[in-house]
């Protein structure tokens, strides 16, 4: 057999394997869709999250006004349904005459981006380290586990606030502060699952046929535990969004003039007695988004991994 046919065979084999994989994936997605449809609240949550994401992506196209342009003649206009309201400023304006609805739409960007990035990086780091620690054990495992224990000794928000205090505000510092502790949960989950999966027969079988350790971790074990990681990630997203909003509320997160829901609530505090909408409405935007993510996440857990416990 010459080299060309060997290569052709290899390619044909790979194509065959991938055809099967894709067919399985399509089947799984179909099953998933059927299951999701029978859970109306989870489905509703998912739809709302998609709407938020679309609003964030197309913010420039859909905002009725410029979110950062202030006009002091238009200060503190109440929402349209209240006396003195203006239909072109549906949710009213803030203390600098900026349209509240536009700011809420643009503010979705910060919340979603921080949520996705901080959870994404935490998942990547936690899964990689957890898989290595759980599979190889030894010194690496000891060191990482002790470090994780140490991070768990800090309440989440205290740690994030402490880090922001020393790093200073800013988008990437915020991501760093949230992920520096965020990876620990994924590390613990993946490490634990790794310990449970490693003695199983299919892992032994893979070793016998001569698969390398990295290949066993990546293509044999991880596909079996990735669903739990996915579920935990979804459920943590809402938490991270609340953390970002809390830091921005304290003035330690996203800085003005970039609209962020947390800092919008904070600036509305001074006008609480006269203009209730300024802090109430951005807060409702947070509440609906986090609620939807949690509803979707819980549905996802029931479908994919009913035994996973998240507190």
């Amino acid at each position, binding site marked *: 057999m010459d080299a060309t046919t060997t290569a052709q065979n290899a390619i044909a084999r790979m194509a065959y394997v991938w055809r099967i994989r894709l067919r399985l994936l399509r089947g799984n997605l179909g099953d998933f869709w059927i299951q999701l449809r029978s859970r109306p609240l989870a489905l509703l949550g998912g739809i709302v999250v998609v709407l938020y994401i679309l609003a964030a992506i197309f913010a420039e196209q859909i905002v009725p006004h410029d979110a950062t342009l202030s006009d002091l003649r238009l200060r503190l206009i109440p929402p349209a349904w209240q006396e003195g309201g203006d239909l072109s400023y549906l949710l009213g304006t803030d203390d600098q005459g900026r349209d509240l609805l536009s700011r809420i739409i643009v503010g979705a960007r910060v919340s979603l981006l921080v949520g996705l990035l901080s959870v994404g990086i935490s998942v990547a780091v936690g899964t990689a380290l957890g898989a290595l620690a759980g599979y190889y054990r030894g010194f690496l495992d000891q060191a990482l586990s002790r470090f994780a224990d140490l991070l768990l000794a800090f*309440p989440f928000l*205290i740690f994030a606030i402490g880090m922001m205090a*020393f790093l200073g505000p800013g988008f990437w510092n915020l991501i760093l502060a949230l992920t520096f502790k965020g990876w620990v949960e994924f590390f613990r989950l993946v490490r634990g699952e790794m310990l449970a999966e490693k003695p199983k027969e299919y892992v032994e079988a893979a070793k016998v046929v001569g698969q390398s350790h990295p290949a066993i971790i990546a293509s044999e074990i991880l596909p079996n535990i990735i669903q739990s990681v996915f579920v935990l990630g979804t459920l943590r997203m809402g938490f991270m969004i609340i953390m970002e909003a809390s830091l921005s509320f304290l003035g330690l997160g996203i800085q003005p003039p970039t609209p962020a829901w947390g800092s919008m609530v904070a600036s509305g505090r001074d006008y609480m007695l006269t203009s209730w909408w300024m802090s109430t409405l951005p807060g409702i935007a947070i509440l609906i988004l986090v609620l939807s993510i949690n509803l979707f996440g819980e549905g996802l857990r029931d479908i994919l991994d009913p035994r996973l416990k998240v507190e």
Partner: protein
Amino acid sequence: MRAVKVIERMLITVPIMFGVAVVVFLFMRLTPGDPVDIMMGQGGAVGVGEMERLRSEFHLDEPLHVQLWLFLKDAVRGDLGYSYTQKRPVSELIAQRLPATIELAAGALFFALLLAIPIGIVSAVRQRSLLDQFSMAGAFLGVSMPAFWLGIILILLFSVRLHWLPVQGRLTFGVSLEYVTGFYVLDSILTRNGPALVSSLKHLVLPSVSLGAAVAAIVARVLRSSMVEILRQDYITLARAKGQVEFLVVMKHALRNALIPTVTVVGLQIGTLLGGNMIVETVFSWPGLGRMVVKAIFERDFPLVQGSVMVYAFTFVLANLVVDVLYTYLDPKIEL
């Protein structure tokens, strides 16, 4: 045997606290800029000689590991350094603020348990009833709501609209209170001061509710799900078969076992109470540790921030120690 295990568990906290102190120290070193420069930025013009003197007074001219050693040595003796802005020892400032913070956290925990335990029990016993569905929906809202926003909504409703409860602070202006422990509710009882008791309790309600809501939601959910599981066990059926009154089956046989996972969750939620503390104290202008830290961050008063973060972490570690010890008394099977 139990005593040995409790002592063992206590000893584990020592290396953790040591690690916490090291992490907090490294935090401090992460900051760009020289502490003396920052300090002088607030104090006005001083000569170069004076700055050198301050540097050696704070041991900033020593190598890092020596600084770490000195920091740990001082911390063990309760010396957390000197506040740049207030020109007083950090430990003194923290001690002064701590009672207000603990009072708020205790109020929040009390509110959370008062709400969550009955709801958890009744929802599990009357599964799928209207009350169950209503309270679980409420619990879902509770975990999805930022504490600062809830605080503002409560103020808008109960203070601004209805005038039932005060907006901020711990005591109404003009009400006098003799300072004994720093816990205003306790102090007013100790000194038999009726008006101060009413006033301090009224001030405590809204902050406690905003801080405790998320905890209540989580505890209610956990208690409900573990009660549901336990009520299905054989020994519950047996207790019923033996003719035990249903009330006692629930309260004695089921609840005691269901409390075990609940206690763990409460322990973890103390972290939420401590972290949320900074937020809620800011919303309600509550004169505690959290508000001092937030102010210190903006004034770049790093020793004060550093000391407070350490105290928060230590409190959390100690609270979890207490929870773990409590655990052994609830469930004799558990090993620490």
